[in-house]
């Protein structure tokens, strides 16, 4: 086997590894949004929070619920309670990146507002989790974000 052939084979192998890693990171989950949401809610303390309707989702994030395959949003009625959990199954052509951007910028803005006068709320907002994985957008501001994140990943 000449040296060219070895280089070609190495290239193909590296390319295959690259594709496998890339696909692994972008795999779409078949999980139902409701089940994912239930798993997350079961993993954290949600006392005082309630599941919100489409209007609240639109009001908070500026998107129509119908733009996505499944939207589950939980928040408090009190404006002083910053805890919230959002699980969105995006589906084809859904504005997933725009939603993630909105979620992040909104959390950052809220942190800017609360850090002046509510250390507890600002501490929660500082460690929020927002990510896009497996065709879902996940956002949580709660006491144990690590547990929420673990539950989300496990449910996918």
């Amino acid at each position, binding site marked *: 086997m000449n040296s*060219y052939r070895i*280089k070609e084979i190495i*290239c193909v192998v590296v*390319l295959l590894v*690259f594709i496998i890693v890339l696909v692994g990171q972008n795999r779409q989950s078949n999980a139902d949004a409701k089940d994912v949401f239930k798993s997350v809610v079961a993993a954290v303390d949600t006392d005082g929070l309630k599941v919100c309707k489409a209007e609240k989702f639109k009001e908070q994030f500026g998107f129509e619920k119908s733009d996505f395959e499944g939207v589950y949003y939980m928040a408090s009625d009190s404006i002083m309670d910053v805890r919230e959990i959002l699980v969105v199954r995006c589906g*084809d052509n859904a504005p997933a990146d725009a939603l993630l951007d909105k979620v992040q910028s909104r959390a950052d803005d809220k942190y800017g507002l609360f850090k002046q006068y509510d250390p507890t709320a600002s501490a929660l907002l500082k460690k929020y989790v927002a990510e896009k994985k497996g065709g879902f957008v996940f956002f949580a501001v709660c006491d144990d974000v690590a547990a929420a994140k673990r539950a989300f990943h496990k449910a996918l």
Partner: protein
Amino acid sequence: MIFSSAAFLFAFLPPVLALYYLPLFRNRPQTEIFKKNLVLCIASLIFYAWGEPIYVILMLLSIYFNFTIVRDMEHERRSPRRRKRLFIAAILFNILVLGFFKYFGFLVGTVNSVFSLHLPVVKLALPIGISFYTFQILSYVIDVYSGKCHVQKSLLNFATYVTMFPQLIAGPIVQYGDIEMQLRARRMNRRKFTAGILFFARGLGKKVIFANTIGAVYTEIAALDPDNLGAVTAWFGILCYTLQIYFDFSGYSDMAIGLGKMFGFDFVQNFNFPYAATSIKDFWKRWHISLSTWFRDYVYIPLGGNRKGTPRTILNILIVWTLTGLWHGAAWNFVAWGAYYGLLLLGEKYIYGKALEKLPVIVRRIITLFIVVIGWVFFSAESFPAAAQYLGAMFGGAGIFDGMTRYYLTANLLPFTLMSCSALGMFRSFPISKNKDLRLVLQALGYAVVFAISVVCLVSDSFNPFLYFRF
């Protein structure tokens, strides 16, 4: 990174040009050109990585694989069978890589919907410019195999050819044969550099001042409910898109050609007033010239072109145009758009072409433009049903006028008229002055003003990518 951004204009381009022209090896031309190619190649990788760091790996792998396999092909030139096998392997590699990243999701989605299956769809971001650089690589592989060009022995030169940032993201698609010599030696002088600046300023103006302005009107109209869209508004909307896509893409091509000249390269012309075409065949000789040339040279002619009888010619034309549609995007509306042009070209070739030629030029231009505008409906729509719905509105599905018709027409009539005249080439022979020097000074001043206005627009505008980036 995009050309029409402050980061590119003020943070990226000036230092790259400074490094490129730094006369380190003035007395050793070979070393100097090596240094220039090195600067250009590294700058191009940074340019690409700016938005897509992960896909630089894919591009580098593709470059190295193709460089190696073509050298291997030449190494095996005494064994035609092995050489052919390597050639097929190279073609397959490139098509599979392009196919996987661009069409796999579309294919699985289609299979799922046809057979009611639920195969998992892998959704990967499309590596930017993959359609363009894959076609350039294929041009190299095919040209070397067919003996049209020599094998490139320098990996740096080959990488420079593939990655060259002026045309990496959205063309023009440079065929290897057109640039082979320039990679080894190219003429760089003040005249060429100045011409490059003028080209670039013109392209920037087309994109930032024209395309973005008229594109905003189309975006507004396209967002309206098509069930309540009056025919006049719908026509005005798609005419705005017609102008937007021309100024956007030809602006990008002008900028690419201008940047090429600044670095001493001569790229092929990509647009020649396509909306002034007198037939569809003529339109495709004027629109995205580098793509239609590529398909002619590497698909149509190898398939037999028109040399194997009428049925085979018809089949070849349909194959080429379906592929042209698919090249633009992995969706059925693009396939329909490609097939639409295939059928029209067949019609012109075999049915009504001669009758068309007898009509006055102005009538032929209007007919061609009408056909092209209808084609843009398929091209601009997000899906095939959305295109059908918009077409319905254009032909009076929701009445002739709506509540917004008058507003859109009156608010945008002046820029629309000016841009239409410009796109039709009416300002081409505008008499500036008979004095050559004065003409040059006025031209330079004009482009300086265009550049200044573009920069002001850039500062106030948000992100405005080129339409052709998604291909």
